[in-house]
């Protein structure tokens, strides 16, 4: 797992540090009409031209940060011109908990990421609150009588919802609920929801993400529910004369929910995509929005921090889903 994270960050590091990307960075930082020599000298002054593995080691904090003398001034990765010489640190990298400095937002990367993650966390919390119960209800209702009319219509609904990516449903929702042509019930922009989320400005982004993820979970729930409903012990319960509602709620449901749990956990990385799209579409300045800004401007250190966070999210959810599966399923736990 650590190896995967390390490999992934190195790939991101390598791609962002390719020369054309550095050139673009230099030009956005300086000005767009810089000559090739000016670009090279800017990059050299800021330590971008060292060999790739060395730079990666510096970013990680296992190699000492670069120190250079430019125009009689000592410059380095780990200090700026104002720090007194005695306080110059040798190592500064992720291992020293120094995530670097964002060139787009002109502030510390860790502060930006923490703030934006909080905002996205809020969004995700409400998405989960809407998506999970809805998906489970749809799946259980569809799966309890396989082949019935209810099953057919709910299954088609969940197929339709997986077939509608966020940028399509978001556009349609805005057109219907937040434009001059449709009803103006909700806000088409969620910028104000960053401070104060309410029903009017937060519904559309939440529903947009929830809808796309819902279909998949509902289908998984349905599949595992239909499987459970054909099991022997359900037939026994029926023959005993237990009512249908009781069978579904007390006998089938618990066993049917093991598989969807795994799916819900594995859905997190997918939701990350949805978050990026929806935050861009609704102008909600969270984690996904930062990703777009960082990637669009080749903000190397911010982009690295963003990818580290998202890779950790992916790997941790995989781990939780494995552990949770064992915990929920007594057959595996006991053996």
């Amino acid at each position: 797992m650590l190896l995967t994270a390390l490999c992934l960050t190195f790939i991101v590091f390598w791609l962002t540090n390719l020369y054309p990307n550095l050139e673009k960075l230099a030009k956005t930082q300086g000005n767009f009409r810089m000559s090739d020599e000016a670009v090279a000298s800017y990059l050299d002054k800021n330590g971008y031209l060292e060999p790739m593995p060395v730079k990666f080691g510096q970013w990680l904090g296992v190699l000492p940060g670069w120190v250079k003398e430019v125009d009689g001034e000592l410059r380095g990765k780990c200090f700026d011109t104002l720090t007194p010489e005695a306080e110059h640190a040798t190592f500064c990298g992720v291992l020293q908990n120094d995530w670097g400095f964002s060139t787009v937002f002109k502030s510390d990367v860790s502060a930006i990421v923490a703030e934006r993650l909080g905002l996205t966390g809020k969004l995700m919390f409400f998405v989960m609150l809407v998506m999970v119960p809805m998906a489970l209800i749809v799946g259980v209702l569809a799966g309890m009588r396989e082949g019935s009319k209810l099953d057919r219509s709910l299954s088609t609904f969940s197929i339709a919802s997986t077939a509608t990516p966020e940028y399509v449903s978001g556009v349609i929702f805005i057109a219907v609920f937040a434009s001059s042509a449709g009803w103006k019930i909700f806000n088409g922009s969620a910028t104000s929801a960053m401070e104060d989320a309410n029903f009017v400005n937060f519904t559309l982004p939440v529903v947009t993400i929830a809808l796309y993820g819902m279909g998949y979970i509902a289908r998984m729930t349905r599949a595992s529910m239909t499987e459970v409903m054909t099991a022997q012990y359900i037939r026994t319960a029926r023959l005993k004369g237990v009512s249908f509602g009781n069978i579904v709620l007390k006998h089938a449901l618990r066993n049917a929910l093991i598989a969807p749990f795994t799916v819900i956990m594995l859905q997190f990385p997918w939701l990350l995509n949805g978050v990026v799209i929806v935050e861009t579409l609704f102008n909600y300045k969270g984690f996904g929005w930062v990703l777009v800004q960082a990637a669009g401007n080749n903000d190397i250190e911010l982009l690295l921090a963003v990818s580290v966070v998202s890779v950790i999210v992916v790997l941790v959810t995989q781990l939780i889903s494995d552990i949770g599966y064992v915990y929920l399923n007594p057959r595996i736990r006991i053996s």
Partner: protein
Amino acid sequence: MEPLTWGEIFLRVMQQLMPVWIALIVVFAPSLAFKRRLGLYGKLFDSTIGMIGFALVMFWVFAGVLGGPLDMIVTHDPLSQISGMKNKPPGTALRRPDEGQYAYFLLGGDNLARDVFSRVIKGAWIVVQIAPLATLFAFMVGITLGLPAGYYGGRLDTVLSFLANLILAFPVILLFYLLVTPEIVLTGIPNYMALFLFIFPLVFATILLNSRYHTQPKLRTPLLACVIGVLGWLYLSLVSTGGAVVATPGYRIPGLPGAIDLFDIDPGILVVFVSVVFVNSPTVFRIVRGLAMDIKTRDYVSAAQTRGEGPWYIMLWEILPNARGPLIVDFCLRIGYTTILLGTLGFFGLGLASESPDWGTTINSGRQLLRAYVHPAVVPAVALMTMVLGLNLLADGLREESLRD
């Protein structure tokens, strides 16, 4: 002239789409009549859902093919701007229509005064071209690597699975933002990836034929020479542009000279294509690997092993045909997913040119004024949705029908 009413717009759109309806009838009538004799394809027409899905997919395929290269359905040029038509609602009449010009913007004009209807049809052609082909390449990569990983297991499997999981752990959008930029195109990385990814169909076809016919050298040698010749030529024309395989400011690797180069691919399209294949192939790899691991324990595989068949013969001629059901279903689903990915790229303005009529780009340019003018973004959004929905329903129908027997 008066703008059209909604009823008239509907009628005129239907009339413009007439070639598509005719093509659909031509496909559906014989299929329905002979559905008992057409195998899995015929069985599709037994399930309503599968039939609806197939109709939706074929609708867009015909609209793309007839409207794209054959230029039939479209009413205006998708790139030309007509004065006075900026953001006009559906059914608006042209101010001064020229001789022979279609007098209305059936589905309105976008923010650059272009015809929304024609752009959607032209956009269908882009999707219909790229999505199935990219999915096919992803399948070639996934099958060629997944079969040995599942069949042999061991260290090969560990390494390949690690690589696949590595790519899968990447958030797709981050990967796109890193790969699909003009700066990356300059470094030549997409060309290297194309070199690597596009070789797989060639490898696949060669191994497939060789493993089957290597006992009959008289048939095998000319057959392989032909196949490698044709596919190799296609491969080389695919990867070389302007006489070079990789051309960066610093160096160039010479490729096929321009005279025998069949077609050139725009670098913007190439990078989109390559990254979509790259994102899709690890998932296909995992599916094929899982299927191979499951099927290799069957009796007919042991029988083939006892007969002394080579490992590639077993993989490609015993395991693969028996894994076709799930693979066909996944192929349909994956085309839909690829369509979504293409739309995502367009939505973030990556890769394709900003005036390109593909659906994602059109949605992106339409969303800025979405609160005031709905139609430029909603029309391509609905188009994309119906196409992906069709593919999903088709996959569902196929799954149901293939499970039945």
